[in-house]
């Protein structure tokens, strides 16, 4: 595009990179103030630069692309270090830098006592860098850099408390499961190049747009499905969601930033970004929707039986990500993205609030040892309540708007999806409020001395609470809608009421079970028996994976490959060859018995054979 203004897009990710580098190399000897200043400064500068860029770009009717240098060039394939901003990415940029900055601020308070303060902020900034690369990338390979990079930061941050074994395990699990997703993503890229000869998004999407819709399957469906595999990994969808709950081993701000607000939505972002491809592959769309629904239900069910406050919210995240997928799958891309944004607000808030609670209780995360905190930490309570109402979809909170958009679109697509969706919404309201009630109502059941968090922590909570309340009125859907085909969603008031009703019902049920009649929960759990145990044990998915994949892989490698193939076939083959050669030599060795007469016999044998051969050749010339 000629005469594009040079807006130095590269500065947006580079600010946090510099922050990460400074803190990472020098931060160890710096004061906490300086570290925090650098980290927040980097994040905030980035935010400012985003705002500045967007204001300079105005309406953004077409994407603004900036190309910097060639990254990989081989033959016809040319992948550049190209960044782009369009309406979709602008939304993500604001969320990432905005919410990211808030969480940075919050973390200064939360991590105050940690020895790894410098390390933490270095990682956090590094995460922002990669996330921004992901969002800004103009080609899939660069996007993949961000994609893997955020995975790396997630790995580092989940494993932040690396002295604990579970943290290391969880980190590795996250990375490896994500790698499984990335496997799909890479294959999708490979196919793109094979098909389109490029990874540049504009080129790929233009080419895809020109292709016919694939009724059954085809190359676009293949690409789309492989992208879905990648998205499932990153956005914790069935069957790859298992890493996300474990990821709560990381510090709470991390859970808020990475595992709620930003990184996990990358899968949603990529699917939305690739809408041109998906629109040509209805089969893939259907798959996305079904996976989303399944994820939403399963995670919500598990969420009802978790006792760790962060785990509850983690499953809730999984469940909400499922909603987003449903949105994408039924063609309501803008609704899906809208939900990404509102979810970023209220889920970040939920986590930060939970963090505040944990902070207040000196690290206690078990709901069973909370209760009655409403009065002790009121700011936390009120902000958390706002978030809970938002997630429960209560009008006029933010969650209501985005969730309804999705559900309505689902109804338009297939009514049964709507019904599953609203039931899940009810469940969501139930388990979120279960947590709220267990935490803030009733008697305090723990032994710590709760105290309100410092201002540096609750100020972000307040800001996020405001956004959770009013975020639904941001004109995000209108802003990005032109990017996608017209969504045919009828604004059916009945359906809206139904969904809100389910949400309220969930809240009331929770209120009934956990506030009015404490003990009902245990009773009903006992009544449900096996089903409850299954839910409480997360449907034994981890165990199933262990039994079906991890264990066979490790044991198989050890028993079959290492002890079998390696030691028997490879080494054994080698030894066998050696033994054979040596054995053959041994034959001759035995002939060499030291006896002269035997030697003479061999010589005679040789002479006879020589003669015999000559005679056998016959006479004549």
């Amino acid at each position, binding site marked *: 595009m000629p005469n594009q203004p040079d807006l130095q897009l590269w500065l947006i990710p580079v600010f946090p990179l510099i922050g990460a580098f400074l803190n990472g190399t020098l931060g160890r000897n710096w004061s906490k103030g300086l570290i925090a200043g650098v980290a927040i400064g980097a994040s905030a500068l980035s935010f400012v630069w985003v705002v500045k860029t967007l204001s300079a770009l105005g309406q953004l009717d077409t994407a603004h692309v900036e190309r910097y240098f060639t990254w990989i060039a081989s033959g016809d394939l040319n992948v550049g270090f190209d960044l782009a901003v369009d309406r979709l990415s602008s939304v993500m940029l604001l969320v990432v830098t905005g919410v990211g900055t808030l969480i940075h601020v919050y973390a200064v308070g939360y991590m105050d006592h940690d020895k790894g303060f410098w390390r933490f902020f270095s990682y956090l900034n590094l995460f922002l860098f990669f996330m921004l690369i992901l969002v800004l990338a103009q080609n899939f390979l660069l996007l993949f850099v961000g994609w893997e990079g955020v995975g790396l930061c997630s790995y580092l941050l989940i494993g932040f408390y690396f002295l604990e074994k579970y943290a290391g395990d969880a980190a590795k699990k996250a990375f490896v499961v994500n790698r499984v997703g990335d496997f799909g993503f890479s294959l999708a890229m490979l196919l793109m190049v094979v098909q389109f000869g490029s990874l540049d998004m504009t080129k790929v999407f233009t080419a895809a747009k020109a292709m016919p819709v694939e009724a059954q399957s085809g190359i676009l469906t293949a690409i789309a499905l492989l992208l879905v595999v990648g998205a499932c990994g990153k956005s914790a969808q069935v069957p790859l969601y298992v890493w996300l709950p474990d990821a709560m081993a990381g510090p709470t701000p991390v859970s808020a930033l990475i595992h709620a607000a930003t990184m996990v939505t990358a899968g949603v972002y990529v699917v939305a970004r690739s809408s041109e491809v998906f629109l040509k592959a209805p089969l893939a769309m259907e798959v996305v929707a079904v996976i989303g629904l399944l994820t939403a239900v399963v995670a919500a069910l598990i969420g009802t039986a978790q006792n760790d406050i962060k785990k509850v919210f983690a499953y809730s995240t999984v469940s909400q990500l499922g909603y987003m997928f449903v949105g994408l799958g039924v063609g309501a891309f803008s609704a899906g993205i809208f939900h990404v944004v509102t979810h970023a607000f209220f889920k970040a808030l939920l986590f930060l609030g939970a963090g505040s609670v944990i902070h207040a209780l000196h690290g206690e995360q078990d709901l069973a040892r909370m209760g009655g905190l409403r009065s002790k930490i009121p700011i936390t309570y009120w902000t958390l309540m706002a978030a809970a109402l938002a997630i429960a979809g209560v009008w006029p909170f933010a969650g209501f708007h985005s969730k309804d958009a999705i559900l309505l679109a689902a109804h338009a697509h297939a009514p049964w999806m709507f019904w599953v969706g609203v039931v899940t919404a009810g469940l969501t309201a139930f388990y979120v409020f279960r947590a709220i009630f267990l935490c803030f109502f009733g008697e305090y059941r723990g032994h710590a001395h709760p105290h309100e968090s410092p201002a540096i922590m609750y100020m972000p909570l307040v800001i996020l609470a405001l956004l959770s309340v009013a975020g639904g009125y941001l004109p995000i859907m209108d802003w990005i809608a032109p990017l996608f085909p017209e969504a045919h969603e009828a604004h059916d008031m009945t359906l809206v009421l139904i969904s809100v009703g389910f949400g309220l019902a969930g809240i009331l049920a929770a209120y009934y079970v956990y506030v009015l009649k404490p003990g009902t929960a245990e009773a009903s759990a006992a009544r449900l028996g096996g089903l409850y145990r299954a839910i409480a044990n997360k449907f034994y998915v981890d165990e199933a994976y262990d039994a079906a994949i991890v264990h066979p892989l490790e044991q198989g490698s050890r028993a079959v490959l290492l002890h079998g193939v390696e030691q028997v076939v490879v080494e054994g083959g080698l030894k066998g060859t050696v033994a054979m050669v040596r054995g053959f030599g041994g034959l001759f060795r035995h002939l060499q018995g030291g006896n002269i007469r*035997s030697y003479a*016999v061999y010589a*005679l044998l040789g*002479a*006879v054979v020589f003669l015999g051969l000559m*005679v056998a050749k016959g006479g004549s010339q």
Partner: protein
Amino acid sequence: MDLIFFLLFASIAVGCGISLVVQKHPIASALSLIGVMGSLAVLYLLLGAEFIAAVQLIVYAGAIMVLFVFVIMLLNAAEEAPSRKTNWPSRLLGVPLLAVFVALLAYLFDKMSPSLGTVTFGAFTTGGKQIGRSLFNNYLLPFEVTSVLVLIAILGAIVLARKEID
């Protein structure tokens, strides 16, 4: 007559040869060998090689075999003791191989015989004169060089047979 002489001394030669192989006592073997050599000398005569026949008796049967007998006596060699170790290769392969060997050669001579003549006593006789002339003209070098051989033999015998180095 030639045929009778040939057959007679050929049989003696073969007989003594067999005796050499089957006799257990080295002295008996040595005597058998002398028998072979003697009969060969007669055959040489039949072939007209007078000088060689003489040398065969003087050098071979006379000198060399005396040396053998002397050593046998010196070492007081007794009858072969039955072997403690069975020598499988010679036991298994010896006879068949020898049989094949002889058969092969006989086959070859049979093939060759049409181009070979016959031997009649006196048809071709060489005496010391021809031998000497040839030896000092055509075969001067080998003749001279054999002196080295003899030198080595003397030297070798001295080196090996003198009293021990302590």
